[in-house]
């Protein structure tokens, strides 16, 4: 079954098509949701709302772009709505602004996706949103400002702070990993 047939089946409210669509995209979209939420449970709630919206609005998909992109955009919108609904803020830990740490791809490439997700999850809420939207989804600051109802300046500032926070976290990992890497190198020699 092609993607188009699947979509048309969903428009006809065929349950088997809807389930297939869910199976196809739910895994990826769950990761998207997890990046924007505080925990897995909340991510699953957003995922559920997102798919309901997708099925309700399937007729609006115009078949002139990436369907996955359309699905992803709906999920992000749901996640942002969820974020706006709950003004949840875990107490922020002071973040120093003087980090300027070179990144070492060889070390960080070894980090698993789960570990990266965990690092993102530890970001304060506002930073997390902006970093995800800008760095991973590729939205501009103007688009982010519109979506989150904040200033462009705030978006830039949040992104910088997010990066510094991530650098700090990555440095901590590097400090742990580097001796082990040296050890591996020596052992291999």
């Amino acid at each position, binding site marked *: 079954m092609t993607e188009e047939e699947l979509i048309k089946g969903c428009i006809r409210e065929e349950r088997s098509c809807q389930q297939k669509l869910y199976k196809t995209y739910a895994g990826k979209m769950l*990761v998207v949701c997890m990046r924007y939420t505080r*925990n897995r449970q909340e991510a699953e709630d957003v995922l559920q709302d997102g798919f309901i919206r997708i099925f309700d609005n399937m007729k609006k998909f115009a078949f002139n772009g990436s369907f996955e992109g359309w699905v992803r955009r709906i999920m992000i919108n749901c996640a942002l709505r969820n974020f706006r609904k709950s003004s949840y803020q875990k107490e922020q830990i002071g973040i120093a602004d003087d980090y300027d740490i070179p990144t070492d791809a060889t070390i960080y490439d070894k980090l698993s996706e789960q570990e990266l997700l965990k690092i993102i999850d530890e970001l304060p809420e506002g930073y997390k949103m902006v970093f995800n939207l800008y760095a991973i989804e590729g939205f501009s600051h103007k688009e982010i400002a519109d979506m989150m109802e904040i200033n462009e300046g705030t978006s830039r500032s949040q992104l910088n702070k997010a990066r510094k926070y991530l650098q700090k976290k990555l440095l901590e990992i590097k400090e742990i990993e580097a001796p082990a890497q040296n050890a591996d190198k020596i052992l291999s020699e």
Partner: protein
Amino acid sequence: MSTEKNNIDELFRHKLGDYSLEAPDHVWKAIEARRTPLYRAINYFKARKGVAVLGTLLLLIGISSAALWYTTDSVLQENQAEQTTTATNTNTPIQAANSIGGDNTVETTRQTAPIAAIPVQPVGNINATQSTANNATSIPVKNNSGNTKPPVNTNNSENTPTTNNSDGVNSPTEPNTNNTNNPQNIEGTLLTDDNNTNPLPQGEQPKQEDILAAGGDIENADTDGADKTAEANKNKAQQNATIKPVYMLGKYTFDLYGGVDFASRSLSSNGAPQSYIQAKQNAESFKVGKTFGFRVNYDATKFLTVRAGLQYTQLGEKLNFENKYNYTHIDTNTGVILDPLTQQPIGSPITTIDTTYGTTTAKANAINTISFIDVPVQLEWKLIKTNKFSVFATTGAAFNLRFQQDGYQINTQLDGIHQLNTNTTPYKTTAGFTLMGGIGINYQLSPRYSVLFETTYRQGINSVMKSEAGMQQTYRIFSGSFGLRYRF
């Protein structure tokens, strides 16, 4: 620095951009459950609250307007009918004369169209027939032989111009001496039955027994009786001249009302840790809520009214959660110890376990909404009642059709909050029964419309929490509402 930034962005984009986890089956089950027609219909209106409220208002306005139009039209028709009857009655004497059978003739000063008839049996013997003057006038008549009979002693309110015999012989009795024979006195009167209360339909003939029962007795007629009749006629004519339109008010009324709610609750443990109950009590507080609804009332007696309807209540709950708690973080690392000189590993790899203890504070703010759709059934007892004002007390119960709490709930570990969803919510979908009692005042603006202010206390009987939640929670709501009452 710019490159480093890009590296970080690239690192996360590359690793997480297309990363996928296994699709959770229970989420699909929840989605399936939410795709049922009923759920979708509820969601449709939930998503379009404005449309739903507007639609309901338009419907109510439509019903009220239709009811108003119908009743106004009925009153107009009643008034028109009344006016027609009055005009007809003005002509009664002539028609009465005309209707007297045989050769009997009556001369009158007016000749108008023969519309309504004073019911008289058209027989040859006037002695027998004149007893029909139950609702007619004092009419001197003469028979064929030229003998004039005394006028009929009537019970009605009308006066008839005195007639003269065609042969110039005056009637032996002049019953109308005290009467005003001006036809204008007849204006505004109604063609009535024995009790002078109900207009007779145009052209309808009263029954013979009714006529006789009215006491129409020609033989016993005298002038005293005629005087009394004239006096009564005068009074009744005055009363009739001031007749106002009468509204045919029914026993059913319709209320549209809305107001504010002040809620509180009782929360107790049914297995949940007391610390959690305490945290909930400290963190959650109610905002002022709102209730609106409609009901239909039936006046069972002058003082007792039964009422039932549908009402929607929405309460707001502020969640301000803050909790300082201890945490334990365990890091497990495996590595080797290097010789500082040779940089060679010493011994086999070893595993270290670092345990970090700390204290952190979780803070969370959220607004929850709690909504009830109830069917209240109440008795309303009027304590004080004047022409326009009444004070009433109410008592009854409400059956909850739908209960829902949306928003956030404190985690059982007291380390934050989580969003409620249909799968994890500890709340039931119905709140069961609520007892209601209250007191109110009603002020009548017009025969049909009145305004009311009412205070009501509602006490939930059933817990709104599921048994597995480990808690029991019931609501207490004090409401003040204004309403508009329409009487059908």
